[in-house]
């Protein structure tokens, strides 16, 4: 697409401004991706850079110091992230286009590879949760043995209880890891709904508990599931399990909340 004024160029500029300043709706995102595929790579992020430059100019960095507890949390997350294998970026895929994928001749291969990756990913995600696999159970036991900043709480019925579901949750503040144990929690159909854990901590308001990860239950026998906290957890005081749409949610409506565990 050339820089000369035409309806498509105008629309491209307009949608970029909307994206950068106000955010895009799902429909606009689709349109943005369509238009972006026709823009030379070197031109894609020019307006992003302009806005980012203004952000830097106007960021009053001297008076806006990062709070110490956040600095600590970021440091902990960094050690976790940088120690782990590279993972798929959460950044908007529209914004870091790879030159190699712009050639049409690679598109079928790329789509096939994506489909294969998606199939593998879906299979991995939806595999039956194994009934107390020794490694998970062992890791839980080791966590209990280490007993470093450990909190433990029993599951109790939530506002929309699951009849007969029991178990507990253990969480290590120092290691920032923990495990949930369930018995009798109903099996879910991952394509229709999934369970999601929420961690209530002192560094979060009650309205925005920390996402502890999405999981499936494939047996009413005892199951142990690792907690996957998305943020640093400071002084966890309650855990809640909700039932959400597949893939989970960013903010839960808490309409279906079968289990709660309050730290005594």
């Amino acid at each position, binding site marked *: 697409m050339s820089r000369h004024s035409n309806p498509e160029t105008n629309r491209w500029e307009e949608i970029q401004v909307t994206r950068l300043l106000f955010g895009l709706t799902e429909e606009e995102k689709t349109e943005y991706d369509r238009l972006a595929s026709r823009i030379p790579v070197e031109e894609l992020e020019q307006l992003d850079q*302009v806005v980012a430059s203004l952000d830097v100019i106007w960021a009053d960095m001297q008076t806006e110091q990062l709070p110490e507890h956040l600095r600590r949390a970021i440091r902990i*997350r*960094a050690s976790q*992230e940088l120690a782990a294998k590279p993972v798929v970026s959460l950044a908007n895929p529209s914004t870091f286009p790879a030159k190699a994928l712009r050639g049409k001749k690679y598109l079928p291969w790329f789509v096939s590879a994506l489909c294969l990756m998606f199939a593998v990913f879906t299979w991995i995600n939806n595999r039956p949760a194994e009934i107390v696999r020794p490694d998970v159970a062992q890791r839980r036991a080791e966590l209990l043995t280490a007993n470093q900043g450990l909190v433990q709480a029993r599951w109790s019925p939530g506002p929309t209880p699951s009849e007969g579901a029991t178990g507990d949750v253990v969480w290590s503040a120092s290691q920032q890891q923990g495990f949930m144990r369930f018995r009798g929690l109903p099996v879910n159909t991952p394509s229709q709904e999934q369970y999601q854990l929420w961690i209530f901590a002192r560094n979060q308001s009650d309205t925005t508990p920390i996402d502890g990860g999405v999981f499936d239950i494939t047996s009413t026998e005892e199951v142990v599931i690792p907690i996957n906290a998305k943020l640093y957890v400071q002084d966890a005081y309650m855990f809640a399990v909700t039932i959400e749409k597949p893939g989970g949610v960013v903010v839960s409506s808490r309409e279906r909340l079968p289990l709660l565990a309050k730290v005594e």
Partner: protein
Amino acid sequence: MQVPLLTRIANGDTGAVDECIDRYGGLVWSLARRLSSSLADAEDAVQEVFVDLWKNADRYRGEIAGEPTFVAMLARRRLIDRLRKSGRQLESRPIDELALQHAAPLQTSPVELAEEVAQAAACLERLRKDERKVLELSIYHGLPQTRIANQTGLALGTVKTIARRGLLQLRVCMQVRNQRRSNEVEVV
């Protein structure tokens, strides 16, 4: 020449992490406070931005943008995305309502700015008053279009038009200045 922090992090130098947090923590925090609907959200967002930063450190290219600009780009993208996903707008009150009473945002001293950002600051001075005002309200104060319209008395459609015109002017101005700078370097 110093190796950029993000390049060091991408190469597995974990010693650069603290430096990175020291250098860009204030920038990200400042943006998060302005583009989040609550302090708790801002705290979550800052952590997410830094996770993005560790994951995307290998994508940093010094010849395309300065490090602070790259960090700000990543941060804004994440923050705007969070606002959209949560279905919230900053319609009610930005966290720092007091900042709205400032005639203009406090500007980082030019001596502290990297060259490319200093160029942007110079270009900003050349914008029309209404263009600068709309950009300040949307970028610095994080206001949605409706509130900018209320604040300025402009029609809703005009807000976006002026914002777009201002950004395009800045883009052209910055490109011209960069071109001049390249030519000067070649002559030298």
